[in-house]
């Protein structure tokens, strides 16, 4: 099991008639920061909760640190699931919350956590109900980071945090990861901001894995060719595209392959403007629903 933090084998989760996860099979690596990306309802939170043992899977097998987290205390102590709004109870002071974490997690670094909260300007005497949304996110993020768990699951951890503190958070996360390497899995809709700290990315769509790749591979996954409608129509004929938009203005097509690859060179030769596709756009192009016609219907009687 060396090198694998979480092993998922044909994991399914159904809520009555709704399938949240549809046979997920993947091995998430140790000692890397993994971005768990997907649209709303794609199954990110469900996947994280199942990995943390907080949600029951309908079928399949989940091993965290090589053990079944629902039965193994040691494995359980090596996993932290954190989100922007945990059910910690509104009446506690933050200092009390830190005590709970300190009691529960064997590697919790209390001093580190206190320092982090001091940097964020959050008083330990405050009660949880007096915190703003951003402050709550910062508190939960600080606690989760200080647990130093081998598997750290952060579910939308940056909601409500202002841009200055977000920059601080990314820096702390990356630096702490370098000091204490572990598997950190972050789900976020703000991929453009966090892609710099991610080492791998897992894209989910409708409860299925679209891909699980290193960030460098993701950056090389697609390229985009822009041109006039005729040029695009002429070029894509007989070729497999990820998506294409053929309009009077702003026609383009997205293809699989690197911007430096053969297909891109061919597009260049055909007079098209070729550009690399960012990881955020990759996730958009690969999961974008065909809703153009539905949008137009908004302004029609």
């Amino acid at each position, binding site marked *: 099991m060396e090198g694998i933090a979480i092993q998922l084998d044909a994991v399914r989760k159904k809520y009555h008639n709704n399938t949240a996860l549809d046979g997920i099979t993947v091995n998430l690596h140790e000692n890397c920061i993994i971005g768990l990306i997907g649209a709303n309802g794609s199954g990110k939170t469900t996947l994280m909760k199942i990995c943390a*043992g*907080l*949600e*029951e899977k309908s079928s399949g097998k989940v091993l965290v*640190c*090589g*053990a079944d987290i*629902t*039965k*193994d*205390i*040691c*494995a*359980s*102590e*090596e*996993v932290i*699931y954190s989100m922007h709004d*945990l*059910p*910690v*109870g509104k*009446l*506690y002071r933050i200092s*009390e919350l830190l*005590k*709970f*974490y300190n*009691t*529960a*997690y064997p590697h919790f670094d209390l001093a580190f956590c206190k320092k982090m909260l001091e940097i964020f300007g959050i008083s330990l005497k405050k009660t949880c109900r007096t915190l703003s949304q951003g402050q709550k996110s910062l508190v939960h993020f600080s606690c989760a980071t200080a647990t130093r768990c081998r598997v750290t699951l952060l579910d939308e951890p940056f909601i409500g945090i202002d841009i200055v503190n977000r920059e601080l958070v990314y820096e702390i996360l990356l630096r702490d990861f370098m000091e204490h390497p572990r598997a950190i899995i972050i789900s976020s809709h703000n991929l453009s901001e966090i892609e710099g700290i991610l080492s791998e990315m897992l894209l989910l769509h409708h409860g299925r894995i679209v891909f699980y790749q290193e960030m460098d591979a993701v950056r090389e996954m697609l390229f985009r060719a822009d041109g006039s409608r005729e040029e695009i129509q002429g070029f894509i004929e007989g070729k497999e595209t990820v998506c294409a938009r053929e309009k009077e203005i702003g026609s383009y097509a997205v293809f699989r392959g690197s911007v430096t690859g053969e297909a891109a060179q061919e597009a260049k030769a055909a007079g098209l403007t070729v550009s690399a596709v960012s990881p955020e756009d990759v996730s958009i192009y690969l999961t974008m629903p065909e809703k153009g016609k539905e949008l137009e219907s908004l302004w029609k009687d």
Partner: protein
Amino acid sequence: MEGLNQNERKRKWVSNVRKLAVIRLRQCRKLYLEAVLFLGLAVVLDFVNFFMKYQNNFGRKNIYGIGELPLCAAIFLAAVFGLGSYNILGDGRLSMYPGTVASRFCARLCSDYLVFLGATVVYGGFYGINSLILHVFARKEIYLDVRNTFSWNYLGAGMLQMFCACLFMYSLLVLIYSFFTKIGIVFASVFTVAVIIVANVLIYIKKLNLYKVWDLLVGKGMALGSYLAFLLSVWAVFTVLAFIIAFRVGNYRKASCFLLWVVVAGVFLGGSSCIRPTKSVYVYEASYFRGDEKYLFLDKDAKKDFLFQYTDFKQGKKIMENIANGKILRREDGDWILVATPRVLTEKEAKEEGCLEEGFSLKENQMLYRVAASDLAYKNRHIYENMVKSLTIYQEGTDIFWERERCGNVISSAFGMDYEKCQDTDYDISRYLKRWWGDDFQSVLVVEDALAKKWQQDNDNAMY
């Protein structure tokens, strides 16, 4: 994870349970504080009620420990904590910390049991404080008898009963909740409706008496030992079953608290409309003296003799009149003895009427006061007999006083003493006798012929 051996894993598991229990206890400490304040408020209100009654001169003079209001408050709190167990598998505030299904379940049980233990200690503490205040108050109010206000035995028995009853009720609720999580909300609703229908059919058609069910639950008529054994065995079975179900469910679900309220309300509200209590279980049904009185004092064991000595006629007359008028008072509060006014007979008359053995003979300047009662047993408890046996009547000059000593107690029976020999009279009186029982105690005063004649003459002379 693989490196730990079996023992280390066990230690880790226990440590996890301990950690989670500590977190849970810390999380709920405000709730515990509120519970203690609530219990304290009930005690204070009970005091206010007591003093108001006392001021209006119709209150109890003889106090038997803590009132009913704090008891109701304690039961209410136990129910609240019990019903709070609906999220024993899905308590988000606890399951966000590391643990397994089994360790979270056990941690929750441990922390809740500790709460019950704490509540029991607090309840016992209030009993002690209550007694202390009454004792202080009684120093100024000489008519207040507080001797029976505090007893270590009652304290122990009460606390044991309360703790075990809490465990019993909690385990029942946890079992139902675990069962509900297993079968899901739809089947739980069906189950709820089915329970209500079956219960109401039993109540209406089979004439199930809910009082009997209640009596069983509160252990009425049972020795403390048997009652505790009953509670603890049911608790153990329910808890193991709940644990097995929870372990099989294997996730962190919540059951519907509402459904349980529906079950309870459906059964009891439906049943309450058709209960016709045929006979109160509280009334001790012995009424021996309404039958043939002729050989009453000889045939029954439940009798006790008290001999009084006098030096001259004047003193003898005074004693005789005091007893004949029923002026036998308790020293502390002046309470009259709860015995029917005696018939005054000479030795010869007493023997003729079967109140005195043939071989019995009074010594000079002596009179006999004999108290007797039925020795019938109610629920195996010879209450009247014990009351008679524990009675002491003594003279100080011409004044006659009575007092009753404590007998063995229910605690003794819980720890192996022969139950027949350890009846607790005061406890029994407070528990079983809710009506005036004085008429069920008969008495006779046997005096020397000489004293009777002289007294008669004296009276005749006084009349003319």
